[in-house]
């Protein structure tokens, strides 16, 4: 073997098709939930834009060989900060923390999961970014506990996806993650 192991082209095709199908199913499910719960607020349109946005970022980053996970983390922080700022300027209605930020975090979590699965035998590369996004995903809970906002249905979905993401990552690369945490956080 004179090259690092890479995903076989057929496997890449299969995985991509699965992820595209999953994205479409997710988008449809979100539209359905939107219709059944809060038909007056078309938040599913925003989530679906988010899914398309993340796909664009993902493909762009992979093709340009950049640090995709770092890219996603940066985008999450920047987009969330902008949304919270806009919300506060419009009179702190709370839509940023109850709708927009959970959507951003949800999409980011799914992206990190895709990256973890695609980067064959290199889960560790994204582990630390994934953990940071996971911690960020729980931030809306702080606002809920402080009774600043109510826990929205999107918030619940977002946290559920984060926990699911954590479980899958731990199953896939428990040893690697603990080593990475030790290395990065050593005093």
């Amino acid at each position: 073997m004179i090259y690092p192991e890479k995903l076989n082209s057929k496997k890449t095709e299969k995985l991509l098709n699965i992820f595209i199908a999953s994205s479409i199913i997710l988008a449809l499910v979100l539209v359905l939930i939107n219709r059944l719960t809060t038909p007056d607020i078309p938040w599913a349109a925003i989530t679906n834009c988010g899914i398309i946005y993340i796909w664009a970022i993902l493909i762009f980053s992979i093709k340009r060989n950049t640090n995709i996970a770092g890219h996603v983390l940066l985008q999450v922080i920047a987009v969330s900060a902008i949304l919270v700022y806009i919300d506060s300027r419009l009179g702190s209605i709370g839509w940023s923390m109850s709708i927009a930020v959970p959507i951003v975090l949800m999409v980011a979590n799914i992206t990190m999961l895709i990256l973890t699965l695609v980067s064959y035998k290199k889960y560790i590369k994204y582990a630390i970014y994934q953990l940071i996004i996971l911690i960020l995903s729980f931030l809306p809970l702080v606002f809920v506990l402080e009774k600043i906002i109510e826990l929205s249905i999107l918030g619940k979905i977002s946290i559920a996806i984060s926990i699911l993401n954590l479980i899958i990552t731990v199953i896939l690369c428990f040893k690697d993650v603990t080593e990475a945490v030790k290395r990065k956080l050593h005093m």
Partner: protein
Amino acid sequence: MVTYNTVLRGENMKNSNNIKWRKLDNSAKIFPMSTGQKYSSVFRLSVVLNNKVNPKILYEALLSALEKYEIFKVRMKAGLFWYYLEENTKAPIIEEENEYPCKYINPKANNGYLFKVTYFKNKINIDIFHALTDGNGGNVFFRELVYTYLEMCHPRDLKQEIRRPRKIEYTEEDSYIKNYSKKIKTKSKNERAYELKGKKIRLGAISTIHQIIDLEKLKIECSKYDATVTQYLTAVLMYAIYNTNYTENKGKKPLKICVPVNLKKYFPSKTLSNFFSYIILAAKFKNNNLSNFDEMIEFVKKEFKERLTEEEVLKVMSSNVKLGNNFFIKIIPLFLKNILVRIGYLEIRKHSTITYSNIGRIGILGDYQKYIKYFIMLIAPDPVEKIKCSSCTFENKIVFTFTSILNDNKIERVFYEFLINKGIDVTIESNGVLDDISRKIK
């Protein structure tokens, strides 16, 4: 005690306010303007050693090699009219290989360097942006790196093996300007070439398949046709494309194979900058009556004979130099040149189907050889030339490499089966991207 060769420093490096800089050579001018993620203009040289690579020693060896070959210690800067090379004071970076070969070298992520040294298990790679040098210059620098690395790894074993205390004389001159002829007129009649068709591999992946061929047996086969190794392998490549991609897609345009030519064989030059040209073999299968291998190899031999004369080589070189030297082109500001070249290059690229570059034998001295298995050369494929081929020879092994973005390897398989059927020993190495097919080959 290992004695290092003394080096005659580059002559053409200018010195302004203590920052050394030099112009790009005539060929190199086009690369920074036309290069991007899709067209990386990068080639790679690799050596597969018998022992695992020690990264710390490799880094020391790289620093030492750079001291001797300052021509590589540069970064690219943009002027008002042209890009130029400036002395790079930053340290080079080496890292473990984890990406596909021949990918675009982002200078910002590489301390400005236009080459990148990576390693993986027993293998050392150097990816070089073509604006810096050609295969010949890259080979000289890479050999120095390998020699130095081996000397540092095995100071006792190589104690007796002293490299000849000779001066490594090189220049950074633009040998194109020195050797081209202003008087020669060329009539260029360029017809678009057949473009390899098929689905591309997703997400920017590149497949590499190396066919490690027994040179002795290959030469016996070549002698039956009174052909050189390059001619023979070019003909096999033509045969493989014709019987797969060309016929399946009912190709009508001529199949054009671009073969780079080392101009140092024709003109005296000690430059380590680019100094190459190319010939293009245009096979019109019906017009040229080419349907079997025997006819194809006769066609290739004839084309090589006609096109590889000093006069013909000078013609091609001179027409290219004249274009770069044109006053009206010179005065166009760089930002406009970038746009025009990118548009123009979209068309130029369509004039060849595939490139096959053979850099020939990589000569390594006596006792150093026992630490080396073989050398590899790779060229970056692009959206138009979806497959590129290259080869180099070390001892009795010639490694023929396919780098491809096509999602099937029928051409590679027919090429392999052809050689095997002729009784030539071939083994396969690949990066696994199209592994399901290459496993069948194995």
